[in-house]
Each structure stands twice: as C-alpha cells, then as structure tokens.
C-alpha cells in the first residue's frame, strides 16, 4: 500500500533531517539552562538580603586562573573534535586528555575555594542567604562539570583502546556540545557571582 502512495507522489530529491543526537543534546541544554536560570534568579534576588554573616565582598576571590582553565578546555575540546574529523587520532587523544585535565583543574580550584570559605571564613550553605545561594549555584555547576568529566573520561578510555575514529565524530561532537554548555554556564555564573554580585 505504500507502493500505491509512491505512484501518486514524486520522491523528494534529497530528504535529510538533523542528527538526532545533536537535537537531543540541544533539548537537554535548553532544559538545563532553565534549571540554572532559576538558581541564578534566586542568587540575584537574594543579593544584599542576608540578615547576618559574611558578604560576597568580604570573602570572595575571583578565580581567574581556574576560569581560564575551564574556558580553554572548550577550545581544546573543539580542536580535539576537528582532529578526529580528519582522523588524526593521536591529536584527538592529546587534546581530549588536555580537556579533561583542564576541567579537573577547575574542579580542584572550586574545591580549594570552598575549603577556604568554610574553614577560614566560616561560610557554609546554612550560614546565611549568600551561603545558601552561592554554594547551590556554584555547586550545581560543579556537579555538571563532574558529570561531564566522567563522560569525557569514558570516551578517553575507549579512545585509548583504539575504538574511536572519524566515524564516531558525530557522537563526540554531541558530548563536546555538552562541554561547551558547561563552559557557557560558567561564564554566566562567574559574571553573576564574582562581578555583579560584589
């Protein structure tokens, strides 16, 4: 009966639709952006409203180095993808590993900063509104970085085992898109917490 349908209709010349992995990741990014937006709104709303305790200006130090690490990791992951597209596997593995290292450095930096805030300044999530909103927002982002690092590492393992080549490029690209999202969120969080919020 589909044969009958064909006789009525000309076959369209080219019928190509987007890659489902890209579409799905774009949807996930949209959803996650909505979650982050709510946390950012809460952060901005509560600026200056803490009844007690340390204020952002008193305790925050702008994490410039670790931010550069994270943002550079977007560049490395981009070029890692490009290398893979050209089937340059060693370059891909090198750049991909560098991405993971830079992301890991960023997480280390976050941990270091939290250690300082908790033990030197006594700022915890329950101290005041600033503590609650700060740890929630930065923590939510760090959680997404961690999840990304885990996925990047899984790909690295398969890459080192020789299973990743130019044919997998589309799927690597989807993961890279997630990583770019994580970095873009950091740009927003950084601006809100360390620039606007002080």
């Amino acid at each position, binding site marked *: 009966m*589909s044969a009958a349908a064909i006789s009525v209709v000309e076959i369209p010349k080219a019928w190509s639709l987007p890659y*489902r992995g890209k*579409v799905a990741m774009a949807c*996930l990014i949209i959803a996650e952006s909505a979650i982050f937006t*709510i946390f950012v709104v809460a952060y901005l709303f509560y600026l200056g409203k803490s009844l007690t305790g340390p204020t952002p200006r008193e305790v925050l130090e702008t994490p410039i180095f670790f931010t550069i690490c994270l943002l550079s990791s977007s560049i490395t992951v981009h070029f890692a993808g490009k290398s893979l597209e050209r089937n340059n596997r060693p370059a891909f593995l090198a750049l991909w590993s560098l991405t993971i290292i830079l992301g890991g450095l960023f997480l280390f930096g976050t941990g270091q900063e939290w250690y300082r805030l908790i033990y030197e300044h006594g700022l915890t999530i*329950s101290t005041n509104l600033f503590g*609650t909103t700060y740890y929630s927002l930065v923590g939510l982002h760090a959680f997404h970085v961690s999840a990304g690092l885990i996925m990047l590492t899984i790909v690295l393992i398969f890459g080192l085992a020789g299973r990743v080549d130019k044919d997998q490029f589309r799927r690597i690209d989807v993961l890279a898109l997630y990583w770019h999202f994580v970095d873009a969120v950091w740009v927003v969080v950084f601006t809100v917490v360390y620039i606007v919020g002080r």
Partner: protein
Amino acid sequence: MSSDAITIQGLQVQEKPWVDTLHEWVTTVDHKRLGILYIVYALVFLLLGGIEALIIRIQLMHSHNNFVSPQVFNRMFTMHGTTMIFFVVMPVLFGFANYLVPLMIGARDMAFPRLNAFSFWLSAFGGILLYFSFLGGSGLYGAGNAPDVGWWAYAPLGARAFSPGHSSDYWTLALLVSGFGSIGTAINIIATILCLRCPGMKLSRMPLLAWLNLVMAGMVLITITPLSAAQIMLLIDRYLGGHFFDTQAGGSAVLWMHFFWIFGHPEVYILMIPAFAFLSEIIPVFSRKPIFGYPVMVAATVSIGLVSTSVWAHHMFTVGMNSYANSFFAITTMAIGVPTGIKIFNWIGTMWGGRIQFKVPMLFCIGFLFQFLIAGLTGIMQAAVPFDWQLSLSYFVVAHFHYMIVGAILFALFGAFYYWYPKMTGRMLSERLGKWHFWFFLIGFHLTFDVMHVPGLLGMPRRIYTYEPGRGWDTLNLIVSIGAFIQAIAVLVFVWNLISSYFKGAKAGNDPWDAWTLEWSTSSPPPAYNFATVPIVASRRPLWDLKHPEDPDSQYE
C-alpha cells in the same frame, strides 16, 4: 493491499507462556507498548485519585461532618491534586504521544527507544514512591504520612519547621524523579519529530497532533525544570540547613510561589495542548472535512506556548504584588485568551459545512467545545484582577480548573480513547456503552462543577475539611457530591467497556473511521515495525490522496 493475517493450513503454533509475554512487556522499548504502559498506568492512578476525590466529597457533603479527620482530609486533597496532574494526565498524554507520533509521521519508532523505556519507568517509579508515603512517610520521627501541604507545597508550610517527618520529602522526591522522566520523554518527542519524519513530510505537512505534541514537548523542557530547581532548593532547605524559603533568615515565601507558578501555569497548557491535538484529529474526521485553518492552528498553538510563560503570577493576585505587576499579568492572561479563542472558532469552522457523524469520539469533542468555552470565560473573569481578589482561593477557582481538566481535557481524552482504541487493540469499543458513559458523565460533570461555582461566590474557601452551617453552603455541597458519584459510575462503565471490548468488540480493521492520517494505513494493531515500507507523502492527508486520487490535497497545498 491486504494486511490481514495469512493462514497456513496445518501449522501448529505453541501458545507463548504468559511469563514470556510479561517479560516482553517489562523489557519493551517499542513506542506502542510503552504508550500502552503509560496509559494503563494512568488509568490505575485515575482510580486512586478518584477515590481520593470521593473521600473529599463525602466529607464535604454537609457542614461539620466527621467522615475523616482534618489530617486525613488534608492528605486527600494534596494527593488528589498531585496524583491527577503528575500521575494521571501527564502519563496518559505521554502515552498517546508515544503511541501516535511515530505512526503519524511515518517512523518506525521514537528516536531513542531505550530512553523512552527509561523515562517511563522513572515516571512510574515516581508515582509508586509518592504512594509509598502512606506507609513509609512516618520516617524517623514518627510524624508525617502522605504529604498534606497541598499540591503546591507553599513555603514556609513545606519547610522542616511546619512539615516535620518525611511526608513533604516524598512529595518532593516523587515529583523530582518523575520530572526527569518527563524531560526524557520530551527530548524523545522533539528528536523524533525533527529527525525521523518520512520522506515528503515537511513540517508543514505534519498532522496537527504531531505539531501540538512538538510544542508541548518544547514547553516541558522549560517548564518542568523550574519545578525541579525549586524542589532541589527545598531539599537543600530541609536537609542542608539552607534558607532559600526560610522567612526567619530573610528568605522569601513569595519566591517559592513565583518558581512554582512559573512551572505551574505552563504545566496546565502542557496538559491542555495534547487535548487540543486530539480535537484537531477527531473533529475533521467526523465532520468529513479538513481542519479549518491549519497554519493558524499551528501559529496559535505556538503563541499559546510562548505567552503561557508570561502569565504565571495570575495565580498570585492576592499575594500583594504592586498594581503594575498585577496589571501586567492581567493583560498577558487576557491576551492568551485570543489564540485560545481562535482555536475554538477554527474547530467550529471545521464542523461548519460538514457532514457531522455523532459517534462517541465526536460526542466527547462537542462536550469539550462547550465546556472549554465556559472554562475559558471563567478564566477571563479571574484575569480581571479585582474580581479575582474575591474569586481566588475559593471554590470558584476549584470549579474553573476542574472544568478545564475534567470538562475539557478528560472529555478530549475519552474521545481519544474511543477513537484510537481500535487501532491499539484491533477491536471497536462498544458504541452503546460509550453513549451510556458519555451521558452519565456529562450529567454528573455538570451537576458537580456547574453548581460548584456558587459556594465560591458565597465565600467558601478551598482546602477546608469542614465548614460552618448557616453560610448557605450545605445543599450546594451535597449536590456537588452527588454529581461526583454519578461521574464515578460513568468511569466504571468506561473501564468495563475497555475490558469487555478487548475480548468481545467488533473487529476494527485498518481504518474503521475512514480517516486520513498515516496510522490508519497500518493494521490494527500495527506490527512492531509499523510500516513494511517507509511511506512517502505529498500532503497533510496522505490517505485522502489515496482514496480520492481525482481530488488529492497535494493539488491544493
């Protein structure tokens, strides 16, 4: 072309052991089976939510009644609302979307079959987690049971201080978990529609059901997530000592309201838009005409989706926002009535000049049109903010939103059941039982929800387990309760119809309604792979083109 079964003589076929069938269903990734799982799941919770409603209505039959204690009553209305929205209407709509979207766009399955299964089981687990609270809610402190903070869990009522024990945690976690399932399904629907349409099916040729589910799925992405965010914040408050909604520490109870309704309002459009989709498929077939104004129907739906994200604080008109904020939300709320009204006109325009067949699906659609109109108008009344200062938080609002959810969405759903049950099972539902179902439900519905507006106008607030005599609310509440029982009987008739027709219903064949979209080109039920050959289409009604080769739609589009 025949898709009837081929009979080979003398062949012995062993019956498949029931355990194997069960295993197939539990491990399925087939969109059609997952669709049916969603729908059956929703029906079970419909019965649970319905029992909760009947308990509420018995308690409210007259003043100073003591059928249940205030504590039990407060759990009942919380669970009734939460169940109906998250574990009845959302799953049943996802179920129909799952079943129909791939078939209607000529695809073999959803884009991500395993994600599909995972999302279903996640959402299913959420419902079970919520109901486990009746047993497990007592927690370490011995306090708590099922959640009793209302389905909005307003701050600070949901805080540890006012909600000890774990009942509110069950509410939070159950919805968080099923929310992630909903996001998974939404991603799947969008990816399926954008990436798996059959050749020739441009977006402008998709059935409206596909379009509307696309809009709904897009809304889910940005609607459920604010609720998830707010719930994470609530958990941080309850367990990590956070102060997001802790008014004693300078936190804001109003912020929770904003976050909740930024979810809550678009959520009801997420529930309504698939109901619109059913109407847009059923009315044309039973009027024997194409949908009137397809492009505008798409545009109106997209604009409803967009505008619905700007109206949320019309649930907060009594909270004390300033007059400018109140005015802003008044105009956006009134504005959304325009595209909604357009859709009503387009459906009537579809019927106009047609040859209307009053089969049961069409009866329910006509009920929808009448009731959705009324519900929309009582909505406009509440958009007139000062009027809402009287109507809000009273039984007028309860009547309004039940008019929407029961009078509109549930009616559309019943229509969808009667329309697509033949496709899903290969059998027709009984028209006779269907008519009994329709008329009983219509009478019960109007008895309950028409009358329910009046106590609201007479000052009866919502969420009260009892009320004083002498306020003039007794008789009205009695009538409302009687109507509820009539609706319950009608639903039982419906359930009986579903079960008995499965065994004794007339064989449906591929296309019992002489319809025009791709799902009617397959067998009933369709084979696992949907289409032997992927179809190629040239118009919005590929089967019309086949049946009327002298006058195909493709000539006019």
